[in-house]
């Protein structure tokens, strides 16, 4: 599969590539490396241009995008109802941007549209890295904390737990991210279970592969 990854940093891109290959169970071909956005809401703002570029100028099958949830509304099963859209949920917002952009594009390069792979890391991608080795970090625990008005951990704390500092150098950040991404890539079920924001991405990717296999 040929895909592009839109991310906030080289560390995120390196880890996502490994995680995506873990979900698909096969190597991927990165169509255009180093597509970057400056965090939220820049990701959503730049995404239409990225999608159009990939659609017309490359042979990418799809685009994978992951953002941190930070303090936004977390995507839940309720949001999956047909026609539902939560204006403060980043997953709903990114999906909407994707939908509205691709529906306006004519077929190009022998395909109708490029596929969507969208995930949201709650509250930050370091949560995914800690999954399975720190029982106190899951999306549900974060949600429960928000519900009672007391966050169970901060993004600062997650950085400390993953990198041993909240000011990691980029090489150190990449190394740490890759160690945990490779651990998950062997079997992504735990990550999908504990972090529905990752499951959303995994489901997109599997749907995408199924559709590609039918073509």
């Amino acid at each position, binding site marked *: 599969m040929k895909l592009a990854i839109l991310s906030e*940093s080289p560390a995120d891109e390196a880890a996502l590539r490994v995680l995506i290959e873990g979900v698909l169970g096969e190597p991927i071909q990165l169509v255009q490396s180093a597509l*970057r956005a*400056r*965090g*939220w*809401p*820049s990701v959503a703002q730049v995404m239409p241009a990225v999608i159009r570029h990939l659609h017309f100028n490359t042979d990418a099958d799809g685009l994978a995008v992951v953002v941190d949830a*930070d*303090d936004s509304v977390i995507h839940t099963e309720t949001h999956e109802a047909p026609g539902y859209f939560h204006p403060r949920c980043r997953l709903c917002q990114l999906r909407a941007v994707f939908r509205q952009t691709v529906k306006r594009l004519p077929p190009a390069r022998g395909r109708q549209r490029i596929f969507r792979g969208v995930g949201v890391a709650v509250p930050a991608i370091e949560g995914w890295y800690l999954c399975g080795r720190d029982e106190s970090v899951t999306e549900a625990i974060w949600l429960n904390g928000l519900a009672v008005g007391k966050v169970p951990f901060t*993004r*600062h704390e997650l*950085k400390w737990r993953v990198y041993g*500092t*909240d*000011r*990691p*150098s*980029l*090489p150190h950040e990449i190394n740490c991210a890759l160690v945990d991404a490779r651990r998950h890539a062997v079997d992504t079920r735990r990550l999908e279970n504990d972090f529905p924001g990752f499951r959303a991405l995994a489901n997109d990717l599997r749907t995408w592969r199924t559709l590609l296999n039918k073509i």
Partner: protein
Amino acid sequence: MVGPNGSGKTSLIQALLLLRGLTKLPIKDAHGTTPPIASPEIDFRFSPPLDEIEVQMACSTDFVCDLLKVRSPSPELWSQAMSEILKIRSYLFDHYAMGEPARREVGAELTGNAGNLAAVIARWQDRIPAVLKRLETEFCRLLTEFSGLEIVSLHDGRVALAGRLADNNERVFAENMSQGTLYTIATLVLAFDPAPPSIICIEEIDRGIHPRLLREIRDAFYRLSHPASFDEKRAPVQIVATTHSPYLLDLFKDHPEEVVIAQKEGLEARFERLIDRPDYQQLLSEGPLGDIWFSGILGGVPQEKSPEELK
């Protein structure tokens, strides 16, 4: 520090340099001097173990601020503070000067415009080659078109800095390197210096640097200010840096305590730490910090006259 032109960012750096300059002179009255005129005063505070020292700078005339009032529990403690104050350094890199060859003997430490960059690296090559190797490795990681740095001895006794291109192994002399490349090398010299200054003041740290490399520039200075995070075993260096780049500011959203906004109000300059704003958390949740700053709601932007005022 961010803020409009003329908001006092450079003046703050000059105040630190003035403190250094006055500290070199004998203190006439260590327990108090009354300024002859009513003038602004600057209070300096220090972190432990020097936190019991108080230093106040005042002006003897309208334009001459040369009065230093020092209160210290002991002469020994003040002596210790003096040695740290004398290690304050300020930099405003000049790529034309940096491109020039330099006399080998002037390489003890980087000068304010980094015009002796070649001499410093030549000295490191002779005396601390392992440190230079680390710097070179980092340089090649950041600027992947290069495979190494070289010092070339010239016939007139001077040394020139050159980079070796990874693709064709050709040599590029510093005079032909880009502005950003030279600034990156100078930044790495500061970051890897085994005996760095106590305080580094540096203007426009984003100048000439591609926005995607700003993270690396920030991290180079974090290596100095937070050495433990980089497995360095030496005292932290305080960094006072100015920028006009929203992209660089974005990189400090997780550390609002490190962001100071300078605001010009008439003839006055005001400095405010971002973390001291009661609403900073909400502001940071609503977009990239650089964009929030550019919008003007944090202050630290140029004043604009209304059409009526322009008439």
